[in-house]
């Protein structure tokens, strides 16, 4: 599902017009951005948690050229699915 159809779904379920939904979305994403940049963990019951994580620098080798490269340290945003999603995916797998 892409962004557009997702917004349409939201619109139908909430019964609000598009402009309002867009306002909520941008506000929500703004909050996510600010909080994750501050290394805060956003954890939503039943959905999962967004955790910013520190990754150390490392040396990688380009297998094609054999060149060694130093990848700098970085922060990444990791998502851990919550139990609800996990169990549903598990049921999907066993089918």
């Amino acid at each position, binding site marked *: *599902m*892409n*962004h557009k159809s*997702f917004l349409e*779904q*939201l619109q139908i*379920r*909430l019964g609000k017009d598009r402009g309002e*939904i867009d*306002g*909520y*979305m*941008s*506000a*929500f*994403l*703004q*909050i*996510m*951005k*600010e*909080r*994750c*940049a*501050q*290394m*805060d*963990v*956003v*954890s*939503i*019951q*039943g*959905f999962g948690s967004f955790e*910013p994580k520190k990754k150390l620098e490392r*040396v990688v080798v380009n297998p094609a050229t054999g*060149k*060694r*490269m*130093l*990848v*700098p*340290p*970085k*922060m*990444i*945003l*990791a*998502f851990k*699915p919550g139990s*609800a*999603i*996990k169990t*549903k*995916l*598990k049921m*999907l*797998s*066993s089918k």
Partner: protein
Amino acid sequence: MNEKISFPDLVSLLASKMNVTKKEAEAFLKEFFTISTEVISSGEELKIDGLGLFKPIWVEARGSVNVQTGEPVEIPGHYKLSFIPDKILREAVNAPFSSFSVEILNDHVSTEQMIAVESEALEQGSEVIPDESDMSVEESEGEQECDAESMSFSGQDSSTPEHGSEEPMPREDASSESSQPEIEPVVEPVAKEPVSEPEPNPVETAPDDPVEDENEIYGQKSISRRAFWWGVLTSLGVVVLACAIGYAIWAGKGSDSANVLKIGEYTLSLSRQSTDKPMVNKATEPVVLEVQKDTTATMPATEIKTDTAVVEQAFDVSTPQPRQAELEPTVGPVVETIRSGVFLTTLARKHFGHKAFWVYIYEENKGVIENPNQVPIGTRLTIPDAAKYGIDATDKASVDKAKELAVRIQSRYE
């Protein structure tokens, strides 16, 4: 910082941002996550601009082993959820490190040097400089390079021959020991223990004290000088260590190597301790004192050394009885022939229950094995009695001792 934001927190944040009631904000977020959960759970991928892409990925079934039992287990195919944050979000999170970029390394640049350079570039404080020189010295120490500066220093050179003149004495001990029946390894487990403990102590403690003392007296002026002497000192220590180990291996070929090595290390640790003190004092005091300090330092060294010789003789006296007692069990030795796919480790596992004990099979068959890593097929090996070397697979200390010995043996073949 590092707060955990739960759903209610998120609701109140959104409500205050949008100037709406919490109820409305909650309704929106609830619906948002419900739809997301539904979509993801159905195995469909979900892309939300500004947040990222959630994508369930099918993982094929694969084989694995149960770590505890060693049984093969099959992990069935399953879905795994992958999340790729949107570019905007990713960059916002990575903002503190955004200035870095991937760098291509030249072939001969080692990572340690890179780290040293980076830290130098980052912290340009005056206090970093001595640390840096310390680091560089330690690196050269690892490569066993000899500083040109350490050679120009006469006091140190005179101290190295000292060890040479000291060592013949322990060698006599060793040769007299080896003239006795050739079941020396019995002594090993008993006599080896003191070696491991006294060795690291002088290395750690000795350099620290003088450095601190000096720091009080001289303060910042002598920092760079101190770093230099400290570097010279450590590099000298490495050279001495290398010489002693080399000598010990050379001398140990004919007779029992472990014993000689032990003596070499012993004298080494002692002489290091003694040389450390005059070294650092010299850095602060006039050169005239040099000679006196050296002579005084060597005296205790030789005294302690004679002590160790006495201790070893004491070990010798105590061991003959058990030695003869253990001659009997080895009368009917177990003989194994090396076949393709059979290694010393497999034999050790078969006979002693742990692969680490291959070292004792090697010790027993030194005469026929040239290189423990490549034992020719068809070689007939005598499997030693487990009690002879104190082999016990259930005893962790025994296994560790075997591993320690393995490291020493391996280092000879590299």
